């Protein structure tokens, strides 16, 4: 290591130490700033220093989406089908977009299509950016859905994009019900020893309520955040019992957050009932189960 510059003067050194101390205190205080101030700082940095990198990610995502634009694929799908079969990831994305289009047609114009970007920086786990914001009618608390079901919820809406959290976030707690309406509870994320062990749990189910494995769990519409009827997952097994009055069940999430690249975000005024938007087979319920005997 070579020599470094001249030794600073003692007065300068003192000022330097004081400055470092102030900065350190500010860094410690940053965690305790009001959430609105934190969001302002984040937003300011995202539209300034980080803008080229976020823009780059959006460009790459858009480029990926353009590759599989449904209208273009409609015209060439036959001739490309053999080639597509060798590109599994592109085919999967195409399938997602088609399913999303089908869902959007059923859902109507208040469900805004959006692409999902994931920051990939430390501390940004369980969060994502979507390409719609307040100018599209999206507000904080808006549900984010995929053709499979509920992916997450918008945490912070900005003009042209929004920050969302997926079901692995500790704050993700939709009120839920079994698909047949026989029991109501609260779905919450349960952290595992490793991220791969993160689980969804349906909590607050009455002890004597019989819940079979495989039953679909939907949003109940209570609380006014999530419309009723969005699929969340299916029951796996009993997670815990408390006395003889409450049970909790592990759920198999119906939507994989990491695989969600294109989603729909509910704009304000989208209504409070989403029942019927998802096909019965999506919910793990055979279609004939709904038919009259």
């Amino acid at each position, binding site marked *: *290591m*070579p020599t470094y510059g001249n030794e600073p003067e003692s007065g300068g050194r003192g000022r330097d130490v004081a*400055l470092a101390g102030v*900065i350190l205190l500010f*860094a410690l205080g940053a965690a305790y700033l009001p959430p609105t101030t934190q969001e302002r700082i984040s937003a300011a940095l995202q539209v300034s220093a*980080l803008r080229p990198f976020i823009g780059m990610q959006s460009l790459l995502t858009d480029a990926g989406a353009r590759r599989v634009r449904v209208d273009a694929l409609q015209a060439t799908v036959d001739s490309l089908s053999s080639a597509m079969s060798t590109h599994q990831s592109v085919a999967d994305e195409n399938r997602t977009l088609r399913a999303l289009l089908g869902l959007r047609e059923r859902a109507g114009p208040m469900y805004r299509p959006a692409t999902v970007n994931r920051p990939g920086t430390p501390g940004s786990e369980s969060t994502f950016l979507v390409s719609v914001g307040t100018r599209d009618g999206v507000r904080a608390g808006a549900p984010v859905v995929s053709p499979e079901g509920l992916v997450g919820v918008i945490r912070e809406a900005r003009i042209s994009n929004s920050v969302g959290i997926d079901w692995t976030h500790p704050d993700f707690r939709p009120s839920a019900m079994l698909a047949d309406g026989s029991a109501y509870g609260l779905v919450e994320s349960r952290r595992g020893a*490793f991220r791969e062990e993160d689980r969804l749990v349906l909590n607050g189910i009455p002890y004597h309520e019989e819940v079979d494995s495989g039953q679909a769990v939907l949003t109940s519409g209570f609380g006014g955040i999530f419309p009723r009827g969005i699929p969340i997952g299916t029951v796996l097994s009993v997670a815990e019992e408390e006395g003889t009055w409450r049970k909790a069940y592990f759920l198999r999430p119906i939507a994989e957050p990491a695989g969600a690249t294109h989603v729909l975000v509910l704009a304000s005024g989208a209504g409070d009932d989403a029942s019927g938007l998802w096909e019965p087979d999506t919910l793990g319920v055979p279609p004939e189960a709904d038919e009259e005997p």
Partner: protein
Amino acid sequence: MNELDFRSVVVWIVVVVLFVVHFVLHIGLSYGRGAPDLLTLGLLIAARETSLGRAAVLGLFTGLLEDAMSVLAFGANSIAMTIVAVGGAITQDLFVGDSKYFLPAYVFAGKWVRDLAHWVSVGSEVRQPFVEQVVVQGTIGSLYIAAIALLMSRVLGAWGEV
């Protein structure tokens, strides 16, 4: 331009390139954990090139940049990066650093301290288990950027002899 000035310019160019490549890999290309933490590497190098106060400012700024993408625990990266920057600047007084083993050891320790400080400041509700985040991932991440630092110093014609 004398030798010291030239060396300083080269080091700062390397630092800026590391910062840019870090955000391209982590945000632009969304590589996440697969990409090395070049921001910490750049900060550790920069911290030994500047004064304590300026290093702290740089640490806070880089920490805020990472916190801007973090809804879960705003401030955790700011604390961690400022501590690392201040610690790195203090090592100027403690180590001359002319050994060929100094840079990888310094970078390894700096990155590990950064992960430890982040784990402590991120809050119990959000953080991963200590063994996973600090012991396993922290050590692997530290070895990763220590290897990059070693490679970089060789490519640049040995650390400090540019």
